[in-house]
């Protein structure tokens, strides 16, 4: 690792290497190294997180960088069982950027904040000379109040099953299609959405969540691999149970991707006790956004720290952590 390459930002193996060898090395502490979506602080009462958004194109089917910047941070809080409350918003804008587009972006942020019942309480703007950034980059940081304690990707056991909240890969596939200028007659759009409302419903239904994570960069594949690794278990996925739309499958066929590795921005993966799984599915199916929720995997000890994909015809293979350069700047 001599220079930073785009592969270091892929949410997969190289990304983890960069984080552990440079950032963890310098900043290491007990909270940080838990490596959760959001840090849990103040005796487990608050969740705290930050995220930067650099997506290109800025506007895409289903959302834009503004909506994404609120969903991303609020979802990281929600994934720790926290109600998003206070956000900061920092923007770096390239000289010459169109004010109309900026207003459109900020209005999308406002709308998404309302959905989360959260507010922006502090902010910063910087304008830089042309060429110093590509149009606009946004950072948001958020604090949330934890509603259910103990959600952690380090505590998954064989008593759990794994659920995904909806059909996967829509965001990644949408951005790919937009970047490649693929003009297809399709309903494909990003899944970008705020997830706290579903998490809240699960908690209110009395469901005890073991682990929860939104499957952003690196997709469901990265989440499952991190979980298998952090909880020292084997996650055995039933391939035919994974919900994937025809449109996403089509893009994967054309460009040679796996839906499991494509990014999502409004899809979560949940580990939950077997006995509560059908109740959780019932709760999730009430929402349009998670009507395709499905139990996709069991937890075993067959191959330690590995994710195994079982096919319909009785073969198995390891699902690897995505490596190399996925499409950069998807979020």
């Amino acid at each position, binding site marked *: 690792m001599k220079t930073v*390459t785009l592969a270091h930002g892929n949410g997969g193996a190289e990304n983890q290497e960069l984080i552990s060898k440079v950032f963890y090395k310098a900043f290491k502490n007990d909270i940080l190294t838990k490596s959760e979506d959001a840090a849990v602080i103040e005796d487990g009462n608050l969740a705290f997180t930050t995220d930067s958004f650099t997506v290109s194109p800025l506007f895409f089917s289903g959302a834009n960088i503004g909506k994404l910047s609120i969903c991303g941070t609020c979802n990281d809080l929600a994934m720790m069982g926290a109600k998003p409350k206070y956000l900061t918003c920092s923007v770096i804008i390239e000289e010459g950027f169109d004010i109309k587009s900026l207003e459109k972006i900020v209005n999308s942020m406002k709308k998404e904040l309302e959905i989360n019942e959260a507010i922006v309480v502090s902010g910063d703007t910087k304008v830089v000379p042309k060429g110093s950034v590509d149009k606009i980059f946004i950072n948001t940081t958020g604090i949330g109040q934890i509603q259910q304690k103990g959600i952690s990707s380090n505590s998954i056991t064989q008593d759990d099953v794994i659920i995904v909240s909806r059909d996967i890969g829509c965001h990644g596939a949408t951005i790919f299609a937009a970047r490649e200028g693929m003009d297809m007659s399709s309903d494909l759009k990003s899944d970008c959405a705020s997830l706290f409302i579903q998490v809240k419903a699960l908690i209110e239904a009395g469901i005890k969540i073991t682990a929860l994570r939104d499957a952003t960069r690196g997709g469901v594949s990265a989440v499952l691999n991190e979980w298998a690794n952090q909880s020292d278990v084997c996650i055995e996925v039933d391939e035919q149970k994974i919900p994937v739309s025809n449109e996403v499958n089509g893009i994967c*066929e054309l460009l040679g991707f796996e839906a499991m590795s494509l990014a999502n921005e409004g899809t979560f993966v949940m580990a939950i006790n077997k006995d509560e799984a059908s109740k959780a599915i019932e709760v999730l199916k009430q929402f349009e956004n998670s009507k395709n929720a499905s139990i996709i995997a069991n937890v075993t000890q067959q191959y330690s720290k590995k994710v195994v994909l079982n096919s319909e*015809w009785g073969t198995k293979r390891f699902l690897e952590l995505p490596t190399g350069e996925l499409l950069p700047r998807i979020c």
Partner: protein
Amino acid sequence: MQEIQLKDLYDGFRDAKTIKAYKKIIDEDAKKLDRTINIMEVCGGHTHTIMKYGIPQLLPSNIKFIHGPGCPVCIMPKERIDHAYILSMQKDVILVTLGDMIKVPGSKGSLQEARSKGADVRFVYSPMDCIKIADENPNKKIIFFAIGFETTTPMTAALLNTVIKQNIKNILFHINHVTVPEVMSELIDSRDEHVDSYNHNIDAFLGPSHVSVISGSKIYEKFPKEYNTPVVVAGFEPVDVMQSISMIVKQFIENRCELEIEYKRLVSYDGNIKAQELINNYFEKVSLFKWRGLGNIKDSGLKLKKDYEDYDAEVIYKDILPIEEIEDHKLCICSDILRGMASPTDCTIFGTACKPNKPVGSCMVSSEGACAAYYKYGNLL
């Protein structure tokens, strides 16, 4: 009119019932074999299918795969990658190539690393995208680093055809196209230095079929005839591969040795004549092309004809492109592995000097190569 969906292209070819039915047929037929047969899938696309769908787990123990050298990225030698690296570092050059090529290291580093040092390196899905890049960057030279087997050569030829017809002045080509039959012959014919023998363990070939969509199945005719090795030209879905294996097994139990086509929905004996003409218009054979891990193979590469050397980056930039050969690691046994004579774990540099992020031989470059697969999975699955 009914809309055609992408899934119509593979529906049925991934059907679990059909796959299981073929498994049953192969299991029964394989009992009649008097020995183990080793089938080489030449093409990286087939290796991908075999790994992704877990085909080896469906086969009886007397049918084995040897993963072949058919990944154009994996076989690219350091010398050629160095050319790409050097070209990408030139002022006002945009180097364009296909997909995974940017990951593979040459002696100076990978194109990905060149880009992190400021080079403008882009990857495209279609070579024709170069036209748009050239149009948007009139003051830059676009160099298309062309890779691939017979399948992608016509696309490069079509790009050159358009460049000439539209009189586009800022697109050049660095040609690294290679051909399949020559490397197949090489694996069977040549003497292996490490084991000092002409032996190989390849009993049959799964023939690359997208190559044959262009070149026809005729290019494999000599293998059953002259080498007594059956070839079945196979499609890329799991049902295609299972059916093709079944066809090969049947040839053995019926004592036949033939060229057969399983992928009949796209492959004909003669192939795509128009694409072949386009290739022949612009390209000619180079006498030797070096393959990573296999060394120089006669007549296995293409270059632009002399008439088109104004478009040839190798000619135009010849003063800065080194021609010295970089010696392959002496201990790399890729060629033995590809002949089915050795296993990755027999190699002394496996997992030490040669790893997926620092590959020596072609078998370690792509995740589908035999060595990379062993490195990742061991013999676990």
